[in-house]
């Protein structure tokens, strides 16, 4: 292509001193390849594939970086905002995750970090065309939300999961300024409510007049009343709205009105699902089931925050089409559940409270043959409580729901036999999380540890990638995990194991382990040391109230320079040398400078 002249015909009107073709026409060969590559790489959407492609050579790395439009940052401290924005120049959608999961259970000091601000300013500079922002366990202020609202004219989607630090004012800024907004999802986030004497801001009224682009509006976690009239008007002028999840300040008569305004809804969070206080008894009772009949496209129902079970039958018209049902805030017993669940033949996802008892689980097993995900939450979290669900419920589910892929099950008693049965009946399990609330509790029938049950899970469920263990567990359980848990990526351990050997089994045996969170287990420095070969491949390791010492952690820090070891400890002098919390993660940049006093970062 670059040979001058030889294979090209003489063109009329072309002077004999024409420049060689290479200068006029074709770019240099490596640049051509890059252009081809960029065009091809546009088709690669999966980030793991893209990561692999970027490792081929420098030009592939460059081309991939220029074509990646969805950027996923699994740990906000693994890489600085500057580094991320320098490498990836054309990002339209960004996901950032902050705090480790155990922060949800109050194990991390309040002001630990995961501040969004540095990311905010970097994004505003680098990606003025940003359209989507997904944040999980990040700390962001009203100012941050203001920045987001004003910096990105094409902004379409804001999803905040388990975030905190902001209030209504921030949400209002987004509503008011993001004219192209399609998705505003606030999920399990703490929205600071105003003091009682301050007026609550009416953020719903901040959406601009006229037709909106809204497709999803989720605000179940916003703990303050909304202006219902404004909400109704908003819904009426949002023809694309498919997902609407209301907070518990919306009463059932109000829900009724909204549903009739938006019969095209596919996902509905029902708010309180009870009458508001100022409705007198004997007021004209609306036919709520007509609303559910009108919304013919409903596939996902949630909410039911303050439900009066009498109203539950209203959802019957929707049951046959439901693929997802979340009753986990509803104190519903077996008899109240049965008439509903017996109609839900297509159900794939079910979240419930253990108030439904083993009997309720039996009804689920009998009907929901297509169930993929089940979560059973505890109504009472005290360790001495008698639990309404048990091994009976688990076993029944395993027999009825053979396609189960993901289970989270809280209970007060569980047997190895039932867990083994599930391992055999549900070979498609990808996520198995069993939480026996009483710590160190053995199998109540055999008085054995729960080792064999969990062993069977890792052995028989060959697709398992996420596991959470509980009950009385010895090192043997970890031996099984190390031996069979070859695909395991996430492991949660609490109050388990006998010695360092337990952790060693896991670190040496599980090559795909990415996230390891351990609390209150007797694993020490020697155990930690056995993972040196693997730590760079992990997103993080959390160990709290174990037997680690500062020296042990320091050795790891010395051995692995790109690892940040955060030792979180109280200031007091202690009798022993054990540290309270180790939070360890790989990082390409210098240690963060926004940590509170109680955090020491070893390097």
């Amino acid at each position, binding site marked *: 292509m670059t040979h001058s002249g030889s294979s090209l015909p003489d063109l009329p009107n072309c002077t004999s001193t024409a420049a060689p073709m290479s200068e006029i026409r074709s770019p240099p060969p490596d640049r051509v390849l890059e252009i081809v590559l960029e065009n091809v790489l546009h088709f690669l959407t999966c980030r793991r594939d893209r990561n692999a492609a970027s490792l081929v050579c420098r030009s592939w790395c460059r081309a991939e970086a220029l074509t990646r439009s969805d950027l996923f940052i699994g740990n906000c401290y693994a890489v600085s905002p500057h580094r991320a924005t320098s490498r990836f120049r054309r990002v339209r959608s960004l996901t950032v995750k902050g705090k480790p999961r155990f922060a949800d*259970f*109050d*194990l991390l*000091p*309040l002001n630990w970090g995961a501040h969004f601000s540095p990311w905010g300013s970097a994004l505003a500079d680098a990606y003025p065309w940003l359209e989507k922002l997904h944040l999980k366990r990040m700390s962001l202020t009203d100012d941050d939300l203001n920045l987001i609202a004003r910096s990105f004219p094409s902004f379409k989607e804001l999803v905040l999961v388990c975030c*905190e*630090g902001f209030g209504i004012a921030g949400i209002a800024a987004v509503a008011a300024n993001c004219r192209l907004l399609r998705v505003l999802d606030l999920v399990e986030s703490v929205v*600071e409510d105003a003091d009682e004497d301050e007026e609550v801001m009416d953020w719903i009224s901040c959406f601009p007049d006229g037709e909106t682009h809204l497709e999803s509006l989720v605000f179940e976690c916003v703990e303050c009343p909304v202006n219902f009239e404004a909400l109704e008007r908003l819904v009426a002028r949002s023809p694309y709205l498919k997902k609407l999840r209301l907070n518990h300040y919306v009463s059932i008569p109000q829900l009724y009105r909204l549903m009739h305004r938006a019969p095209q809804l596919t996902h509905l969070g029902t708010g309180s699902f009870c009458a508001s206080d100022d409705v007198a008894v004997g007021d004209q009772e609306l036919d709520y089931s007509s609303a559910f009949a009108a919304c013919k496209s409903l596939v996902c129902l949630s909410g039911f925050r*303050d439900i009066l079970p009498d109203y539950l039958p209203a959802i019957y018209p929707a049951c046959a089409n439901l693929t997802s049902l979340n009753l986990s*805030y509803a*104190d519903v017993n077996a008899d109240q559940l049965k008439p509903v669940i017996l109609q839900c033949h297509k159900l794939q996802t079910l979240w419930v409270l253990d108030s439904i008892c083993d009997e309720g689980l039996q009804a689920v097993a009998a009907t929901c043959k297509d169930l993929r995900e089940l979560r059973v939450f*505890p*109504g*009472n*979290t*005290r360790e*001495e*409580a008698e639990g309404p669900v048990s091994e009976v419920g688990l076993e029944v589910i395993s027999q009825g729901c053979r396609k189960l892929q993901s289970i989270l099950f*809280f209970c007060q008693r569980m047997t*190895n036999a039932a867990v*083994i049965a599930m391992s055999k009946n549900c070979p498609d399990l990808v996520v198995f999380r069993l939480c026996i*609330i009483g*710590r*160190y509790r*053995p199998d*109540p029938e*055999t008085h054995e*540890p729960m*080792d*064999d049950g969990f*062993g*069977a899970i890792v*052995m028989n469920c060959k697709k398992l990638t996420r596991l959470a263990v509980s009950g009385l567990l*010895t*090192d*043997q359980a970890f*031996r099984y995990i190390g*031996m069979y848990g070859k695909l395991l990526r996430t492991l*949660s351990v*609490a*109050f*388990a194991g*006998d*010695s*360092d*050997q337990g952790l060693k089994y896991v670190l*040496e*045996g599980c090559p795909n382990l990415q996230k390891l969170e351990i609390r*209150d287990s*007797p694993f020490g420095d020697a155990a930690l040391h*056995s993972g040196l070969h693997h730590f760079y491949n992990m997103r993080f390791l959390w160990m709290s*109230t174990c*037997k680690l010492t500062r020296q042990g952690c320091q050795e790891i820090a010395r051995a692995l320079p790109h690892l940040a070891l955060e030792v979180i*400890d*109280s200031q*007091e*002098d*202690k009798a022993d040398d054990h540290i309270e*919390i180790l939070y360890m993660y790989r990082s390409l940049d210098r240690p963060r400078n926004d940590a*509170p006093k109680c955090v020491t970062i070893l390097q």
Partner: protein
Amino acid sequence: MATMLAKEHGLNLKETELCLGLPGGGGGGGGDTATAETPRATGKRGFSETVDLKLNLQGNDTNKEDLNENLKNVPKEKTLLKDPAKPPAKAQVVGWPPVRSYRKNMMAQKVSTEENNNGSATTEKTTSSAAAAATTAASTGGSFVKVSMDGAPYLRKVDLTMYKSYQDLSDALAKMFSSFTMGNYGSQGMIDFMNESKLMDLLNSSEYVPTYEDKDGDWMLVGDVPWEMFVGSCKRLRIMKGSEAIGLAPRAMEKCKSRS
């Protein structure tokens, strides 16, 4: 490590076959019992356990020691349920079970309103009067109060009925606000109001003290009334520097004196 695994492959696979009983004789502590350290962690509470709060920890230590005894003597056979000889109901371990506070709060509110409506008994069984007192407190309704700490950017909400004593509350608050340390409390876990100089020491320090707003709208130092009374009358908590709380002391002492 690699040798461990190699050894295992050479072993008869029968040994590793899963069955309900303990496999072979080699299960349980694995091959390293010689090097194994003392039995598993005894359910220490996370963060707060190591904070020396200078409080009388007697009550809790008794519980811990009993639990230790149980573990050492009967490691595999303990049944923690319904044993009348076991110590009083344990205080809640921070962050356990792993249920998000968001959900815990929801459910606690729900349970309390239900009990207010139905007057039904709680489902838990308790074996001592101390725990029974706590149960009573729980059944009178969840008591959510805002907690703020001077200098901390965020508010928290706590359910006072989840705690059985000032010690519990202090531990939980210490957890939430990591740089917070409670000052010198007396032997009952309450501020010794009769001892003016001790109180003045505390209030002159730069340590933080918890204060609360009671039903009358007065701001008081936490610890001046019996626990149950406190749960009933506390509307809001604020953790402030001892030096700032100094104005509260006279009022608190007045109320205390007028009571006695």
